[in-house]
């Protein structure tokens, strides 16, 4: 018997399979991380092209390029693809690559499920995108799909949209279970929770958020499905249902969802800033507690997205106060990053540039977030372009910049090669300028009264929309440069050292560059360098 086991051990491959099946059948966390990242980049370009359609139509007042019905499909698909296809899978991809390496584990805890949770996504998004070619068009009711516009008045393809959402939810939940199982069970001996790198902490908390709210979303779309096909009236006022109930359920999912997209970003930035400031992260403990507080608060503030639905004053006040509270832990985080930079010895390589831009621009999104939290003022801001500016500031120079920072920061570890620093900086500056030119003027038109989700607008909004479109195209096309830089880095370049960055701390920097296919077959013993 034992001879058989020995033989099996000798046959075991310690490298990737060859060909396409490597990617289809892989259970390796690095391969799956790579798949997630490429998939999300593809979705980022696709969602970006839809944004191009939107911004091109809004370049001038009047209808030039698309029909209003198609425009609505564009805004809807842009939102869905960017949220569920670009940002979330990119964060999961980073977790796949980094969590095992950061905690000294050989792989994720549930590798086969890991494969499954990725490979659901291409099917889910093929189905979602295919609705654009169906009779009656794709979803045209906004990514928030408020009833009854999405039920009674929705296109026939809504059923496919619902199924696609179900699939994405299954994928996210499996990914989250895997991450929790990995972090809680597979840390190297001696790595207590409070010794974990902050990226691992933020993802642990994010994973709990995902498990808590993705089923809520699944419930909401299932009730829609029943209303559409099986004669129920959960959300149909004519049948005794309640359209506002849908919004409560949606935002009970939706608000934690926005933190799902930003908490891992906090983690990334908390890894990068100490490295390039050559100084330990300020206030590690308070960072962890702040993350946990934000996650907790995210469950009890959902109706601040619904201040205009006619809640009683007690409800409005409660949700306003609870929302304002979020500013406190968020402020703590920003101050901690600032204190980490203070009296450091900073250098400004591309990851650091993106991380600093993250802190600056995310804070702008935070300020406008504080403004929209105030109910009386929100009556003016709500559903205007001011809100569009607000959430794009937290999502694009927020989440997306953190993902780019992460890509530049860990690319040398992933590929073994340094990326082209000059091109990286060029990419940063083009993105930085593009993002601000695209989204800052949207504050102005929003305050001046331009509603969101419109294909045509009154003449006084013309100038700033034109500027915004120019910025959006600049930002969009700069991402092709990013693609070029990444490919160039994969194909070659200056060899990276194991440590890569002078000030880098963490277990992932103790293994060779590129990281071997299996990183920690035996748990690392020396944890003195486990977090910054």
């Amino acid at each position: 018997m034992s001879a058989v086991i020995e033989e099996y051990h000798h046959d075991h491959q310690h490298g990737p399979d060859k060909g396409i099946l490597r990617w289809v059948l892989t259970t390796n966390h690095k391969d799956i991380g790579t798949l997630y990242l490429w998939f999300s980049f593809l979705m980022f370009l696709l969602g970006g092209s839809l944004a191009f359609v939107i911004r091109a139509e809004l370049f001038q007042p009047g209808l030039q390029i698309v029909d209003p019905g198609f425009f609505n499909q564009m805004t809807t698909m842009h939102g869905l693809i960017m949220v569920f296809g670009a940002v979330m899978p990119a964060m999961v991809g980073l977790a796949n690559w980094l969590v095992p390496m950061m905690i000294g584990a050989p792989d994720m805890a549930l590798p086969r499920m890991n494969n499954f949770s990725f490979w659901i996504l291409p099917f889910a998004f093929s189905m979602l995108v295919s609705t654009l070619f169906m009779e009656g068009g794709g979803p045209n009711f906004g990514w928030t799909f408020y009833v009854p516009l999405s039920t009674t008045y929705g296109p026939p393809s809504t059923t496919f949209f619902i199924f696609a959402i179900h699939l994405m939810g299954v994928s996210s939940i499996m990914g989250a279970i895997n991450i929790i199982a990995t972090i809680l069970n597979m840390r190297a001996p001696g790595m207590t929770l409070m010794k974990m790198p902050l990226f691992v902490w933020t993802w642990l908390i994010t994973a709990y958020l995902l498990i808590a709210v993705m089923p809520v979303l699944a419930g909401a779309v299932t009730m829609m499905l029943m209303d559409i096909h099986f004669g129920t009236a959960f959300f149909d006022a004519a049948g005794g249902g309640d359209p506002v109930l849908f919004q409560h359920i949606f935002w009970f999912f939706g608000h934690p969802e926005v933190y799902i997209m930003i908490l891992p970003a906090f983690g990334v930035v908390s890894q990068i800033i100490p490295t390039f400031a050559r100084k330990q992260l300020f206030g590690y403990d308070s960072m962890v507690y702040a993350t946990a507080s934000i996650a907790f608060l995210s469950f009890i503030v959902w109706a601040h997205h619904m201040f205009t639905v006619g809640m009683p004053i007690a409800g409005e006040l409660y949700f306003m106060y609870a929302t304002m509270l979020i500013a406190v832990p968020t402020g703590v985080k920003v101050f901690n990053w600032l204190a980490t930079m203070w009296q450091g010895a900073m250098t400004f390589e591309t990851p650091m540039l993106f991380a600093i831009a993250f802190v600056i621009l995310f804070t702008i999104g935070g300020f406008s977030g504080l403004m929209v939290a105030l109910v009386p003022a929100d009556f003016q801001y709500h559903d205007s372009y001011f809100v569009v500016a607000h959430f794009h500031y937290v999502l694009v120079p927020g989440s997306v910049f953190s993902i780019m920072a992460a890509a530049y920061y860990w690319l040398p570890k992933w590929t073994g090669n340094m990326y082209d620093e000059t091109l990286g900086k060029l990419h940063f500056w083009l993105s930085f300028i593009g993002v601000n030119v695209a989204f800052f003027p949207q504050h102005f038109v929003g305050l001046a009264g331009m509603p969101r989700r419109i294909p045509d607008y009154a003449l006084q909004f013309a100038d700033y929309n034109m500027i915004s479109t120019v910025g959006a195209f600049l930002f969009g096309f700069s991402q092709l440069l990013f693609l070029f830089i990444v490919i160039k880095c994969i194909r070659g370049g200056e060899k990276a050292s194991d440590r890569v960055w002078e000030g880098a701390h963490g277990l992932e920097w103790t293994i060779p560059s590129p990281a071997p296919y299996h990183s920690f077959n035996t748990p690392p013993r020396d944890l003195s360098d486990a977090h910054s």
Partner: protein
Amino acid sequence: MDKTKHYRWLIALWLLMTSSMAGADWWDVNLREGVTAISRDVYDLHMTIFWVCVVIGVIVYGVMFVSMVLHRKSRGVQPATFHENTHLEIIWTVIPVLILIAIAWPATTTLRDMYDSGDSTLDIKVTGYQWKWQYTYVNDDPAKEVEFMSNMLTPPDEIENRAAKREYYLLDVDNPLVIPTDTRVRFLITSEDVIHSWWVPDFAIKKDAIPGFVHTAWTIVEEPGMYRGQCAELCGRDHAFMPVVVRAVPPDEYETWLAEQQAEARQEYETMEKEWTREELMAKGEEVYTQSCANCHKANGEGIPPAFPPLTGGELTTGPIEGHADIVLNGKSGTAMQAFGNQLSAAELAAVITYERNALGNSVGDMIQPKKVNEMLSRAE
């Protein structure tokens, strides 16, 4: 040398930006103060929180830029080793809490004022439809109840760039809502199809119009004038094309206007009683069709299948007239076909039904009288 060049460029860019900002009209980039006590409170709250953010921003970004300039490796500095400071952390937790309390106070009082609806002199029901607003001046005496639809006035030629865009492009309607100034007006806001949102920035009112709910909002407008807004909640294809226009007039002028409207309503009632000729019905029908039906079913009746079926040679439009009228009056549940029974007058309904059966390539030959439509309507009630 190289460095200073950079800075010079930055300064030039900054000057360019600020000068273009200075050239812009302030109201193109900021909230409007509006014309009610509430809207001014909201504006003040907005400016307060804005300046609070600016001050915090200047401090935070200031510290950050100082740090980026001074604490860089190229200056040969050695990194410090501190990584916590309990006092500092307590301070920057407590100070934001205090600031938040200071802001929450005016926000709360303003909100309380907004919710204090009290007795109103005038109640107006605002009903959202895809894609227009209906205004009903609620009156205990049904004969005196004034009700009309408010449709966007901007013609397709301007939207599709075939004609020059005039002032108030997309912000002009055929029948604005008319309200008296210095009077407490209450709006009862609801919807007959999807969710809309009734937004008048100058009154700081934005309230969702939700089917099955009636929400209230109120205002006391201080200055006569035209106040323009738009539907704020995505409500389908023509969401961008359902403006809200309110004309505020002095109370005596309002009374005159209301009396005229009531007289017209009585006249309308009388036309319903009379027997119409086919020509009259067809002429009126074409008018109504263009305004209320052509958007979905198209000017020539071909529709946009499958969502909007063709009327030319359609099963209903060529079948029994009662069935046809039933759908026009009561809508078809589960589809985008609205119930026009409470949007159009009996005469308009009779006209458009007759028109659909005898135009658009159909020639059924029959017609329906307003009186008959009215019977169907009252039966439904």
